[in-house]
């Protein structure tokens, strides 16, 4: 009983704190856009250089069908590249962690590749594969793949010595040890990679579209900027941000569902 009532008052306190923090943020947020809106007027900035946010909303709304369709295209490229990066990267990371041969061959190769900016490959892929969806998916894949693989290798290599010994002392086989201990123990570090990749996925898609495409938000932003329409460019950027937020939100949600016990998730929940 005693703990229940203290839990409730805790919850109340947390809610109060949340409202307090959010109010500050909301005021800052509104203030930011007000300053933007009126400084365009006050400093008499030409509309083809910077437009007030009200124009962005109004003109973006008018162009909504196109923006939504291009968001769908860019979102699809992002999601496909990201999901394939996980499907390929996670098992490969595991294999490298458990195989000394792979660790001495592929692993150093990956570490070198990690240093090269993957975006630099975009023109090549577009020249090989044309303007379609595939080269963009590949670029997103490349951007996401390395953080996922490298974090997976780290994750499956860092079981504590004590737990390794515990597993050996039970006489459990490789497979049972993997399912019961190694896999769950590795999940938090894997999610570090998933989240990092999610943040960078839309960057890959947008830049690939800048370089060569006839649809998608990257294409849209480039065209409207050429037409001296920064208002529409901002609208495109807004939708690009939205795709990134949705992907990151989905990964964070998955993390909460899959590893609710982990400290990083617990910390978010209590503060």
């Amino acid at each position, binding site marked *: 009983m005693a703990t229940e009532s203290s839990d409730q008052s805790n919850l109340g306190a947390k809610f109060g704190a949340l409202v307090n923090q959010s109010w500050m943020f909301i005021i800052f947020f509104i203030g930011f856009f007000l300053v933007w809106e009126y400084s365009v007027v006050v400093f008499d900035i030409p509309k083809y250089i910077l437009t007030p946010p009200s124009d962005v909303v109004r003109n973006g709304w008018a162009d909504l069908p196109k923006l939504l369709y291009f968001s769908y295209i860019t979102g699809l490229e992002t999601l496909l590249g990201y999901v394939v990066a996980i499907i390929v990267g996670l098992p490969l990371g595991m294999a490298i962690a458990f195989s000394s041969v792979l660790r001495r061959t592929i692993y150093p190769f990956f570490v070198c590749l990690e240093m090269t900016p993957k975006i630099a490959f975009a023109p090549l892929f577009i020249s090989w594969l044309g303007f379609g969806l595939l080269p963009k998916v590949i670029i997103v894949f490349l951007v996401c793949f390395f953080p996922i693989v490298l974090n997976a290798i780290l994750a499956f290599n860092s079981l*504590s010595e*004590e*737990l390794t*010994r*515990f*597993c*050996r*002392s*039970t*006489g*459990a086989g490789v497979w*049972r*040890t993997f399912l*019961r*201990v190694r896999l*769950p*123990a590795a999940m938090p570090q894997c999610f570090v990679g998933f989240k990092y990749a999610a943040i960078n996925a839309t960057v890959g898609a947008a830049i690939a579209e800048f370089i060569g495409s006839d649809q998608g938000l990257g294409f849209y932003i480039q065209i409207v900027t050429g037409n001296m329409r920064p208002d529409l460019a901002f609208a495109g950027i807004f939708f690009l941000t939205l795709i990134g937020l949705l992907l990151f939100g989905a990964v964070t949600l998955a993390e909460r569902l899959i*590893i609710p*016990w*982990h*400290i990083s998730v*617990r910390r978010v929940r209590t503060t």
Partner: protein
Amino acid sequence: MPPLISIENVRKTFGSGASLVDAFGPVSLDIEEGQFVSLLGPSGCGKSTLMLMLAGLLDVTSGQIIVDGKAVKAPQTDVGIMFQDNTLVPWRTVRGNVDLQLEMRGLDPRRYKDRVLDLLGQVKLLDFADRFPHELSGGMQQRAAFCQAMVHDPHIMLLDEPLGKLDAMTRESIRTDLQSLWMTRRPTVIFVTHSIEEAVQLSSQVAVITPRPGRIDRLIDINLPFPRDLGVKNSPEFISHVREIQEIFRGYGVI
């Protein structure tokens, strides 16, 4: 009857050449079935190393260890081990952690439900069976780790400083539980500690180990009757054992 555990001239070194570390031994020691033997020695003398060798998790450099008439060559599965850091996993509840020991051995936790609850009851953790390790105090975590280490009813238990990181009050109360667990099931226990009082209170024998490379200096029989509660600490015999061991350590210059 031959002793249950026989440590024969066991020595352990790490590394080689210029970086060779003489970690432990040579040591010979026989341990009879059902004894509670404490290994008492200064930090770094090789107690953990000996535990790992007894468990078959670390090879001996020379000599051999014989358990139940067989030389230890691979990880021993019929022992219960508590490592210096506990092996509770954060993604399982207390009960889930105890079940983990069973599942890893291919045993069905549902068939051992009564036993698990009985064990948790004995260490006063029944109300916390469905809590996660991070929701427990250090003392409760160690109690849970005891249950994890002995749920498969091992006939030998290797406990490496299970109370090392706890405060004095918690230590006292867990000692009592540990003693009653030992008395009801009567496994052979090898218990590492660096508290002289703790060793004398719990053990039937105390092996005093020298600084690194550890050797057994004395094997002292503690003949006080079990169970030994806090009152035993006032008995002249208890006090004289503690003094005797303190003198030995003073001789090494470690206290």
